[in-house]
């Protein structure tokens, strides 16, 4: 059992490290944000940063749409067009959907599992700062006019120095490697947080579905991102030091790059979509006013997707010529993964079925998620068929498919999540009127842009071409798609107007504006720094909702057993009762994150720290040095060591002289 403050017997003999900047203590001002370790503030930082990149990536998309709206357009030259689609894809995947999901993880996971922070608050801050610097590094390439131009998949040897001698792809490999470190660190943190820090009684089968999907996503991040790192390191040493991984003249194999990249790339697709599925699974039951239909199936389907996602990568390579055996195997596994996805869609519809539905903005976004994701999923199954894929490969049909799952799916769900949790995070409501207009225009604009691309693709319009000839018959359809793009941009503008408008009006939300189900709605809005004054005791799934509506317990738990309120929580559901017993038997007290915290009366939270940002800066400087000169690497290493040593010697909390 830990003591509250490090005792005098331990502190004086420990090593120390000189502090150049004093540890910030104030909870206000810019330094409090730079040195924050509060998961809610870090979540906000993630959200704001990635929304900014969302706008940047959107502008890149609009420029391409303007170029493609007419045949033989000369507005954008081919090289610029290559840079635009490369950076649009890279930005939307790594700087928008992943970190926006991370914003939700940060904000919600501790709140949903009844914890006061994540397992490693400083590591959490480090993840954000590395992400921020990595994203700036990647986009710095625009400023020197040398943005990456080899596609978000960076196919070697096209991205090799022989064919791509400018600095653009160096920014890409190093930038993505920096971002990978951030993602892995965050993934590790959430795995530990979810496994170790749940409130008493919250067995795995009582976790909210969003928490479950975050867990599956984190496992995928931790296992998939290193594979990308390997591909990037190989390309990086090839480009910078003249090795031969992808040098075809020395026997390097272009297909190897595709295997390594897509072995990462396909789990990555599920990294992007599973958090969105989690968000939708939280929104639907609240606005249907009944519990999620088939919780166990939904969770199990999510885990199954996370597992099967590892065995489908070669469906990105059907036209490479891997032979009928490999193609058939991957075709079958790809079709099979539609089964758990279908289970989820069935469960979501089942959740709404017979519920008394309130069509709030969040709910409308969630329902459009189901519809759009189903369309995208169906065109995905079409690609699973090898002959059909051979026709669709590299056409706009594929573009339409993955925008239906990633925009119609992930982004729609994320917007729904923003409307849903905004009152919790800020304490006031977003305007529902503007919200519904925002949703409607986004949905119309989205379909206007991407539905016609199915036709364009089947008509043979290839991806990644900067223009097309007049007599192809693609002008009208492209013009419609471009108009849809601008409509989408307008809907995002409406969202920003809504944010400003609502911030001015400040309609108070109250603690629980939607009749919420999970623990985050049981505390004040915005939540206090320490989240929970008293750590809640969980008895049921959707515990907070059943606390509000005890009369419904019997209705929804009748088939489980009677006497719910007094039964041991670990034995309620047989799925993992045995595991749970083992876990608890071994459980001991030392894993509470704040071994030695102080402040806030009896509740102890870790002190702020500026070492995460220093460490992140050092890492980024080293990355920049790899592209420029050795002295820069040395400077970066010094900064990195400063951050690392300072971090190691810094106690989680400074000793407090007046012990209370």
């Amino acid at each position, binding site marked *: 059992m830990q003591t509250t403050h490090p005792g005098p017997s331990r502190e004086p003999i420990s090593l120390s490290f000189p502090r150049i900047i004093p540890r910030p203590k104030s909870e206000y001002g810019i330094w409090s944000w730079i040195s924050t370790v509060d998961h809610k503030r870090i979540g906000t930082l993630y959200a704001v940063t990635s929304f900014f990149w969302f706008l940047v990536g959107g502008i890149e998309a609009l420029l391409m749409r303007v170029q493609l709206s007419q045949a033989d357009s000369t507005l954008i030259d081919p090289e610029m067009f290559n840079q635009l689609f490369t950076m649009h894809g890279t930005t939307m995947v790594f700087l928008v959907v992943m970190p926006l999901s991370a914003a939700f993880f940060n904000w919600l996971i501790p709140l949903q599992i009844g914890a006061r922070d994540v397992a490693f608050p400083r590591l959490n801050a480090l993840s954000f700062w590395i992400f921020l610097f990595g994203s700036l590094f990647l986009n710095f390439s625009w400023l020197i006019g040398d943005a990456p131009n080899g596609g978000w998949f960076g196919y070697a040897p096209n991205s090799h120095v022989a064919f791509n001698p400018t600095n653009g792809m160096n920014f890409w490999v190093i930038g993505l490697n920096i971002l990978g470190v951030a993602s892995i660190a965050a993934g590790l943190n959430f795995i530990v947080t979810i496994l170790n820090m749940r409130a008493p009684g919250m067995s795995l089968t009582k976790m909210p579905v969003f928490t479950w999907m975050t867990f599956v996503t984190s496992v995928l991040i931790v296992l998939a991102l290193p594979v990308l790192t*390997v591909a990037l390191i190989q390309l990086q040493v090839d480009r910078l030091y003249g090795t031969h991984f992808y040098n075809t003249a*020395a026997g390097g194999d272009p297909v190897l790059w595709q295997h390594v990249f897509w072995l990462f790339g396909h789990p990555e697709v599920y990294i992007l979509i599973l958090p969105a599925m989690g968000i939708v699974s939280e929104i639907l039951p609240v606005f249907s006013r009944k519990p999620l239909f088939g919780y166990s199936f939904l969770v199990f389907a999510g885990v199954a997707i996370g597992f099967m996602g590892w065995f489908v990568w070669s469906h990105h390579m059907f036209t490479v010529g891997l032979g009928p055996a490999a193609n058939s195997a991957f075709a079958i596994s790809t079709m099979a993964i539609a089964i758990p996805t279908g289970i989820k869609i069935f469960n979501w519809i089942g959740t709404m079925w017979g519920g008394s539905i309130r069509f709030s903005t969040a709910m409308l976004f969630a329902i459009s998620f189901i519809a759009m994701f189903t369309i995208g999923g169906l065109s995905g199954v079409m690609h699973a068929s090898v002959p059909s894929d051979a026709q669709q490969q590299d056409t706009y049909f594929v573009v339409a498919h993955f925008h239906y799952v990633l925009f119609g799916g992930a982004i729609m769900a994320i917007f729904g999540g923003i409307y849903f949790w905004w009152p919790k995070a800020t304490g006031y409501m977003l305007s529902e009127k503007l919200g519904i207009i925002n949703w409607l225009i986004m949905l119309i604009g989205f379909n206007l842009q991407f539905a016609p691309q199915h036709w364009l693709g089947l008509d043979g319009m290839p991806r990644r071409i900067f223009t097309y000839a007049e007599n192809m018959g693609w002008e009208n359809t492209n013009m419609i798609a471009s108009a849809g793009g601008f409509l989408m941009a307008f809907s995002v503008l409406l969202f920003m107007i809504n944010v400003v408008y609502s911030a001015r009006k400040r309609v108070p939300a109250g603690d629980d504006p939607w009749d919420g189900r999970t623990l985050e709605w049981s505390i004040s809005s915005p939540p206090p720094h320490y989240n929970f004054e008293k*750590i809640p005791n969980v008895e049921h799934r959707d515990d907070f909702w059943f606390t509000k509506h005890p009369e419904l317990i019997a209705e929804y738990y009748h088939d489980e057993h009677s006497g719910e309120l007094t039964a041991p929580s670990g034995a309620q559901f047989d799925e993992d009762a045995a595991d749970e017993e083992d876990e608890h038997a071994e459980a001991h007290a030392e894993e509470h994150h704040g071994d030695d915290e102080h402040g806030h009366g009896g509740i102890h939270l870790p002190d702020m720290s500026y070492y995460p940002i220093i460490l992140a800066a050092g890492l980024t400087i080293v990355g920049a040095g790899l592209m420029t000169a050795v002295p820069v690497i040395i400077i970066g290493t010094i900064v990195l060591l400063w951050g690392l040593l300072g971090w190691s010697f810094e106690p989680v909390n400074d000793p407090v002289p007046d012990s209370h």
Partner: protein
Amino acid sequence: MAAATGTYEIKNEHGEVINTSTGLSNKKLLMWSFLGSDVMFFGSFIATYLVYRNRSLVGPYPADILDIPITSVSTFVLLMSSLAMVLALSYIQQGRQKMGTFWIFSVVVLGAIFLLFQVYEFNHFGQVGLTPRTNLFGTTFFILTGLHGAHVTLGVLWLIFLGFGSIKGSLRADNAIDLEIAGLYWHFVDIVWIVIFTVIYLISARDVGPPGSVPGLH
């Protein structure tokens, strides 16, 4: 354990119930998860090596250059460092600081010897004409073993840090977990080397170039 609510309660210093968990400490769970991540990292590089096995267009080929006996010695040294690591942790956990410190620095020394072998090997290969830029074997060999060496280096630095902590008394029985997770890392890096040694040295040491090719060594 509060039987009334049916939950197994874990209380913090204020008597508040705090969590439901795996029973592993956060740090240990973090390290295990990280090692899972590192498996994918080394796994991908080893896969790359195997894909490119026997596909170099010019020499030197593995049969021309690999020396199993010498590398067996350095492999043995690295394996022994894992034994030292076990002893170090055991002594620190028992509160026997001096013995603990001795064995921590033994790990450091053994790890450093392994690294010196690697430096010698890299140097030697360079002199006889195999560099990362020579052929696919050189590229895959140097990058894979080099990144393993980087992991060992990181472990050595970490253990030096902990060794001084043990001398100063900030690493003691009550926070031996800090050494334990370093040990997990160290053993993992050791196991990775066993795989690398098997795959590169034991399995492919007799790989020669395609028929009619000129050995790179003269």
